[in-house]
Each structure stands twice: as structure tokens, then as C-alpha cells.
């Protein structure tokens, strides 16, 4: 059997034959007859140039097929064929093509989503994201508009809020998406550095609305090995950036860890440290739109309040926007408390939300938190008479359960 591929198609029911895609395609992969505009599977390289100029959205259709539909077949269509749900792209990394169209990044995202235990899907009401607009070969150049330390000067945890300005280049992102940063220079073996992914911490309209910027939450990665202090290449590069510095950026990446646009949706967010970045974006999105119908519930863990990024601004958010469960593992006068402990404590409320069809659950942070959180979910579900394992699968398949850990 041939390897299934992801074929680019145009929805003939929505297309108005305006010729914009044919005009835009840099390699002449789009053609037409009297009825339909079609994409030649032998030519199209999924560069996505045609997606944004399409006035109808007809252009943004993809089918996993074992044999690509020929031009002749496409010319005859009155509507798109049903997708064969038995076909998947498992031969490549799970979700690879959808998430990033770039192998190196796809691998990173596949690893990050591995905790989900199956193919990740976006929420039904999520917007369609742009991916891979900028690549290693052709990165976007952003200017640093600000770099602020979020954590207390007294702690050794250096977490930064970095604002990147894209000037006149469009860099559209959705909450939950990541961008790639390639540190300049080469590694010890003389090879270019690997790309690193960072979740965007600002909502889709930007850190400062409509100024074409975005923010990141970056922790300086420090390891002390045999008394010698080592710093992570990319995180130090980012943390040391000055206002006005230029940064090469790839992406955006990620098509599943996205927020539901449905204002009624409940969102449970579980994170530690810089895993809070996508949740800051989602919360800010709802705050700006004054959407308080769906519940936002945040479980956020850090060692101390001084090390919890955005602690101050977070405390100011009203409870009717977001319920905050902040827990700390290094407070002098209190026993250690991790996110999973707090989730257990609030088990009834969590289980009640999980029982609702409009609830979405997101987990983001270090790989180490996964098992604890899963155990907490299992036990709090059990107590409420729910089976977490089957619920998790169902929520995942419905695009309502998302894990991104690293």
C-alpha cells in the first residue's frame, strides 16, 4: 500500500473562482477549468502562500489520502469528498505534518504532546492557525520591545517577560501556539544551534493590542554540574536580550494546543513555571473580550510567590474572570504543596467541570508534573464516579484535552 499523504484541496461549494490562488501560487500548482479551481498534487509543496489571500476560506482544505485525487477528479466535484477516517499519517511522527510542516519542529511538538497518549486534536471552536510562515531558511526578524524580569531579585530563578515586535511583517499567532527561536552562532561541533520552541504568552491581538507584537515567558536554564555553572544556550540568549536587539524567529507552530473560541467553554489550566505562558494568553484573550460566561480555572504551582511568573498581575484578576488555585512547594511555614495536591483538594469542583461537555483541560509545564497530575485526575474522577481513562480518551478525541510538556 502507498503511504498516505495529506492532499491540499479547494472546496468547490465555497470557492468563487476568483483566481487569486492561481495568481498567488509561486510554482503554478493551482489551475482551473470552467467549474472548479484545483490543486495539482504533483506540484503543490504546501508553502501555504495561497491560504491568506483567499477571500472565502475554500482554499484551506486538506484530506489524508492513500492515492491523491487527480486533477480530472477534482474538476468534476460539486462538493468535497468525505475523508477516509481509517487513514492516518502515522508513518511520520504523529501529528507531524499538521503541527508544523518542518521536521525538526514537528519532532519537538510530537514529544511535547506525547503525554496525551494519542493523536491531539484542536478544540472544535478553535480558529484555524497559521503555521510555518517563517522557516530557518527564511526567518522573520523581530525587534525586542522589552525584556523584564518577572521573578523576585532575591530568588535564583530568573524568569523573563520578553516582548517581540514584528514591525511591518505579519506574524499571526493564536493562544497556545509556539514560535521557534534559533540562537545565533554554532555549537561546539561547529553546527548551527537547534531551534527552540517557546509558547506565546500574549493573546492573538498581541501583547499590546494591534501593534503586531507578542510576548514570551522564558526561564534562564541553569544547571550546576560538579560545581560548574552551565547555562542553556537559547534561554540565556533570550534572557540577555536588550531592547532594540534583533531576533530571528520561525513559526508559528502548533495546530492542536489551541483555545476554544466558544465563550461558553470552561477551561481548566494546569501548569508550573513557564508552562503558564499559553494560559496567560488564553486568560488575557477572555479578559479583553470581557467573556466571563465559561469558567476559567487555573492550577498554578511554583516554589514561592516570588518565583511564580506574573504573580502580581494574576492576583489582580477578578474571580468572576478566573478562579486561581496557586500553590507553593517551598514556603517556610507550610507543608509542600504541588498542583496535583491542590487538584485533589478541589476534586469535587474539578470533577463537576470535567463532567460537562463544554469543558476543556490543558496541562503545560515540565514533563515531571505529568504523572502526578494524571494520578490526581484519576483519583478525583474515581471519587466522583467517573472513569478518567475513558474520559481522557473521549476528551482528547473531541479536542478537549491537551498536554504540552517538555
Amino acid at each position, binding site marked *: 500500500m502507498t503511504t498516505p499523504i495529506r492532499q491540499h484541496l479547494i472546496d468547490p461549494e465555497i470557492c*468563487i473562482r476568483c*483566481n*487569486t490562488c492561481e495568481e498567488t501560487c509561486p510554482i503554478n500548482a493551482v489551475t482551473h477549468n470552467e467549474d472548479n479551481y484545483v490543486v495539482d498534487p504533483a506540484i503543490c509543496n504546501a508553502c501555504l502562500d495561497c491560504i*491568506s489571500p483567499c477571500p472565502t476560506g475554500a482554499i484551506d482544505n486538506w484530506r489524508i489520502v492513500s492515492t491523491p485525487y487527480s486533477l480530472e477528479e477534482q474538476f468534476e466535484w460539486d462538493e468535497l469528498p468525505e475523508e477516509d477516517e481509517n487513514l492516518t499519517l502515522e508513518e511520520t511522527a504523529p501529528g507531524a505534518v499538521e503541527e508544523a510542516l518542518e521536521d525538526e519542529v514537528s519532532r519537538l511538538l510530537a514529544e511535547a504532546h506525547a503525554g496525551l497518549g494519542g493523536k491531539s486534536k484542536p478544540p472544535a471552536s478553535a480558529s484555524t492557525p497559521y503555521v510555518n*510562515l517563517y522557516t530557518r531558511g527564511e526567518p522573520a526578524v523581530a525587534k525586542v520591545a522589552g525584556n523584564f524580569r518577572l521573578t523576585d531579585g532575591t530568588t535564583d530563578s530568573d524568569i523573563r517577560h520578553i516582548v517581540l515586535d514584528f514591525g511591518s511583517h505579519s506574524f499571526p499567532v493564536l493562544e497556545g501556539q509556539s514560535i521557534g527561536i534559533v540562537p545565533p552562532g554554532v555549537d561546539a561541533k561547529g553546527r548551527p544551534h537547534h531551534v527552540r520552541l517557546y509558547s506565546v504568552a500574549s493573546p492573538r491581538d498581541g501583547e499590546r493590542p494591534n501593534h*503586531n507584537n507578542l510576548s514570551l515567558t522564558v526561564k534562564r536554564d541553569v544547571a550546576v554540574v560538579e560545581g560548574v555553572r552551565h547555562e542553556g544556550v537559547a534561554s540565556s540568549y533570550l534572557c540577555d536580550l536588550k531592547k532594540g536587539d534583533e531576533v530571528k524567529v520561525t513559526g508559528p507552530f502548533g495546530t492542536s494546543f489551541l483555545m476554544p473560541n466558544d465563550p461558553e467553554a470552561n477551561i481548566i489550566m494546569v501548569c508550573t513555571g513557564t508552562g503558564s505562558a499559553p494560559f496567560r494568553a488564553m486568560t488575557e484573550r477572555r479578559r479583553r473580550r470581557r467573556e466571563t460566561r465559561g469558567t476559567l480555572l487555573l492550577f498554578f504551582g511554583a516554589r514561592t510567590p516570588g518565583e511564580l511568573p506574573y504573580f502580581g498581575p494574576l492576583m489582580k484578576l477578578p474571580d468572576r474572570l478566573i478562579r486561581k488555585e496557586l500553590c507553593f512547594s517551598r514556603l517556610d511555614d507550610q507543608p509542600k504543596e504541588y498542583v496535583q495536591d491542590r487538584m485533589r483538594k478541589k476534586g469535587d469542583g474539578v470533577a463537576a467541570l470535567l463532567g460537562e461537555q463544554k469543558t476543556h483541560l490543558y496541562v503545560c509545564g515540565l514533563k515531571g508534573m505529568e504523572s502526578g497530575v494524571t494520578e490526581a485526575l484519576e483519583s478525583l474522577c474515581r471519587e466522583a464516579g467517573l472513569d478518567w481513562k475513558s474520559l481522557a480518551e473521549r476528551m482528547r478525541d473531541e479536542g478537549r484535552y491537551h498536554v504540552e510538556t517538555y
Partner: protein
Amino acid sequence: MDSIAVSYDDLIPNNVNLSGDRRLQRALEGWHPGYIDWWNSMGPDGFQEADVYLRTAVSVDPKGWAKFGYVKMPEYRWGILLAPAEEGRTIPFGQHKGEPAWQEVPGEYRAMLRRLLVVQGDTEPASVEQQRHLGKTCPSLYDLRNLFQVNVEEGRHLWAMVYLLQKYFGRDGREEAEGLLTRRSGDADRPRILGAFNEATPDWLSFFMFTYFTDRDGKMQLEALAQSGFDPLSRTTRFMLTEEAHHMFVGESGISRIVQRTCEAMKEAGIEDPTDVDPIRALGVIDLPTLQRKANFHYAVTLDLFGAEVSTNAANAFNAGLKGRFQETKIDDDHQLTGDTYPVLRFEGGAFKTVEEPALSALNARLRDDYERDAAGGLKRWNKVIQKAGVDFAFSLPHVAFNRQVGAFRDLPATPDGEVLSREAWDKRRDEWLPSDDDLAFVNSLMEPVQEPGGYAPWIAAPKVGIDNQPGDFEYVRLKG
């Protein structure tokens, strides 16, 4: 890459290095207040304070030329954007074919080119004026947003033409640019230049018909100008075409949604006969025969915009390399048309027949034929909607001689089927083919505004997908107060 990025630092966003040309920048900045005055007095009536979810061109690069966000229309950033220059582009047709494309206006063609720009430019503000009262009867916030998107982009297209006039035509150009703000659609003393742009757009059905049929003429004209040997005009119009596509989308999908709703309502009520007009109208939807009559009207008015079938002006503009044919570079001939002929339909000796005319002078006829083929596409789609619903009806385009005021068929009493009657017989049957006062009054009676997010007037179906992939109840326009 620099020529692709838009400079938003300037008052007027542009990718033409405006700040490097002080004289031009001053001329445009001088024109700008008049433009804003025009927009405030002649633009959408009653919605200047609303936040509208609009796309703004931030770059002509395909990967990011449109950004969506809430904007108050008077604060929309109308910019000057040219498609990227093609390295070593040559003039693709006419007597200068093969010579390097002009970056300045050739002296001998100055007047002709200025006229082309003024006629094209005049249509842009005209349509905004024609549509200024529609907002008050919007069938949904989705449609309201689409109307405003069309309006602001027509505004930007005016800017595009004004840029060319001011940059390349000195004092004459500045005066013409003022003139574009002075004429008014439908004004008896200072009308817009082309007839169809002085007709009112009184209701949403007319708006959808206009964007489908008449904006499509705009597309054909822009396509022909995009071939121009005058490179700045070619680059300007190429970028305008990407925006024009949205206008055609609004028209084609708008009619399609009306057709869908009518068929659904008929099925629900168990009405099989699409010509059983009264019970269908009683359902609060627009009967298919009325839609056909509206289409007949708009199609005929639009055909008039192509001018006389045989025209020396068109021949001169082609010969000069200023205005080509539809998709000129895809046509397989010598692109000079010396000695070629083109079949043009005539009514002679009591019958229609084709006459071979010199291809050069028959360019208007050819563009009109291209238009006819292009316009037929949407009808095919609408007919599929009807077919799918199981209703026995099909739309068709009327004969080119039907109800014409310009060209060879002017005042010929031809029916939509191409039968030529006596004037008296034609007049008697007029209401079979063109909307009657009664039809228009009925359509008008349906025009009640729906301003709830996610709500749609009962005569039109919801769209299949939202703009920018937004959900169904998205608040495309935030109304004030």
C-alpha cells in the same frame, strides 16, 4: 524585501517609499482631509463609531497581506500598496511589445492614461456612495461587516488611483484627484462618470447583485489594466485584484444564501412550484423568479459598462500598451492583433449574426464575452443549490441584447431569450423580465435589520464558514449605544 513591507510610521501606510518623495507626500497629505470629509459625509451612514472586524492590508506579501481586527471605519488605514515589481518586466502587448515596461508615463500617452485612471478611480467612491444607507437594514452582523469591508476597500482603491494621478500627472493629476471627491453618485449636476454607478443600491438584494455582477466588471477592467505596460498601474491593479475577490465573494455567496433559504422555506411549507409566487412570498422569502428578474436587470446594466462593441478608444489603449485583454499573458497569439479579426454579435436584417471585426477595434466586445463566461459561473453554483434542494428551477443569463442602453443593441426590444419583439409588445411584457414596482416593494418590505450576533434575517441562510474562521455567533460589528 523593503519594497514589500508597509511603512505604518507614516500617516499614509505605503510600500512606495512615500517619505522619500516630499512633493508627493505633501500632495497626498493635502488630499487626505478632503478624503476623510468625503468618507464622513458620504460613507456608511450611522456606523462611523462602530467597531468593525475588518481586514487591513499590512503587506502585499501573500503570507501576511491581511490582518483582522476591530477598527472604527474613519480610522481605517487606507494605504498605497503595489504588488512587488517583476524584475525585467517587458510590455506584454501592443506596438511596444517586448520593450521594457515604463516606470514613467510616456509623454504621448499622457492624456489617454489619465482618462483611464480617472474613469477607474471614479467607480470606487461611487459604489461607497451607492451603498451608504444599507447598514440600517443589514440581515446580520456578518453581512454588515462584509458590506463595510467592501466599502473600506473601495476607499483604498480610490487611494490607489489618486496615488498614480498625483505621482505621475502633476497639477492635472491633483485636480483630477479633487474631482474624484467632488462628483456624487446619482447627483443630477455632478454625476459619477459611468451610468451604472449612478443607480441607487436600495436594498441588500441589489447589493449582492451589484457585487456579483457589477464588481465583476471591475475585476475584468482591473485584469485588463494589470497587463499595462505602465508598470506602476500594473502593480497597483494586481494588488487591487486580490481585494476585489472579496467583493465578488460577498455577491456570489450572498445570492447563494438567499437561494438556499428560499428553497428550504419552500420545502418546509411543501410548496413544489417555484412560480407559485404569493404563498412563497408569504413565507417571508424571495421567490426565485424575482431573483431571476433582478439578475436580468443587473446583468444588462453591467454589460453597458463595457462600452461600444467596436471602439477606437479601446484599440488605441491596447496599441499604446496601456490596457490589455483579460489575462493577456495567457492568450496564445501575437499580442499585437495586426490583421486579426474577432467575431462580434450584431443584429442586422432582422436577425442576430456574428460579423468578423478587426480584433483591435473589437476589444470591448471580447472583454464583454470574457465577462459573460465569468459571470455564468456563479449561476451554475446557484443552480446546484436549487437542484440539491430538489426544486425545479434554473437561473440563466439573459441574452446580451436584452435591455441595453449602450452599444449595438441599444434600445433593441429583445427578450432575455434573444427574441426581438415590437417595442409595444416588449413594453407589455416588461414585468416578466425585469423587477416590477411590486417586486421591489416586496423585497423592500423584507429589509428589517438583524443585529443580534449569530442572527440572520429570515430571507437569507447563514454562511457556511465565518470570516477569518470565526464562530457562528461572532460579533462582527460592535454597535455603539
